[in-house]
């Protein structure tokens, strides 16, 4: 033994520091990639103009069900919802009662809790910001249903024969479903079905990262609100006139 205690400790310390260099530099590089990668890409977003929504016969709910084969059994316990219109009344002393109809759907968060809890990675965020479910991988554990603060997700409890739109797969029993921003239409360059067919044109869809798009202009100039901002999830559905 030609090494004294001091040299041994010095060498050990150097070795420990050296082993940290590679993973540390990789982490730094990865964080930089994420920062630069997110800016130029498309990020789909929706603006809901609540001043235009009259709550008609909740036609958008029906349009959505027909477009995406969402089953409707007429029983609250089993019904699946992609889009639902909530009727909200504001009672304040001295102020006229105000009624609002708020279309609620998946908010397509930047930081979605449903994706974090998914044990099979069936829920994921696509590069263009749409949160989707890979129904081939979903095992129906419903962690995501509990995790979502917007109650956007529902499980298909009963076998469904609804197949109004053959372009979209039929709903499979035992998997979780939710609004997909009509990804099959978006990929073809069309707007989601509810945006296109809303009788009052109360919904606007577009690319948030493109400053010339209608959506980006409204978000920049008008007073829009997001739901549950205290959760810091970065939802991409904006409500005007809430």
């Amino acid at each position, binding site marked *: 033994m030609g090494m004294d205690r001091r040299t041994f400790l010095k060498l050990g310390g150097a070795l420990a520091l050296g082993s940290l260099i590679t993973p540390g530099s990789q982490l730094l590089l990865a964080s930089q990639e994420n920062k630069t990668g997110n800016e130029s890409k498309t990020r789909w977003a929706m603006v809901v103009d609540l001043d235009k929504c009259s709550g008609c016969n909740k036609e958008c709910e029906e349009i959505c069900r027909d477009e995406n084969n969402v089953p409707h059994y007429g029983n609250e316990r089993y019904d699946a919802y992609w889009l639902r219109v909530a009727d909200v009344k504001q009672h304040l002393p001295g102020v006229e009662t105000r009624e609002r109809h708020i279309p609620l759907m998946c908010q397509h968060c930047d930081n979605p809790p449903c994706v974090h809890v998914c044990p099979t990675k069936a829920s994921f965020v696509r*590069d263009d910001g749409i949160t989707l479910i890979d129904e081939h991988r979903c095992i129906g554990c419903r962690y995501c249903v509990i995790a979502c603060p917007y109650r956007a997700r529902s499980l298909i409890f009963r*076998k469904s024969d609804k197949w109004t739109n053959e372009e979209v*797969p039929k709903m499979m029993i035992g998997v979780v479903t939710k609004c997909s921003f009509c*990804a099959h239409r978006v990929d073809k360059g069309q707007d989601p079905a509810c945006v296109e067919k809303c009788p009052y044109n109360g919904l606007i869809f577009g690319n948030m990262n493109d400053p010339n798009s209608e959506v980006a202009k409204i978000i920049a100039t008008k007073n829009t609100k997001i739901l549950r901002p205290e959760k810091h999830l970065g939802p991409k559905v904006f409500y005007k006139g809430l």
Partner: protein
Amino acid sequence: MKMRAIIAFLAFLIVLTLPFLVSAGSGNILQSVQAPEIELPDPELGECVEDVSYMRANHMVLLKEERERAVRHGERGDYSLSNCFSCHTNITTFCKRCHDYAGVKPGCFEIEEGCHYAPTSND
């Protein structure tokens, strides 16, 4: 003693291979090996996305990869199931004959809860 053991072993072998020997003797083996005939689509519709022998062996791989691309990245290309169905319109005479023979059930449309559109015409 040794002789008896060898005879017993041979007898055991014969009993073990009896089903194969019987079916070989009756000539059924050759009949059952014949591959099923499938009805190919109209040649006027053009070429398939890959050549025939490749498709025969690897169509399931192409479909699975396409599924992954379409669902997870939104890239919808030529290898999609709906693109197959644009030429191969009859599922019973094209897909099913081979799939029944091979004992394979494609989950996309054949099992009970299948959720992708499949042409069901029998003409």
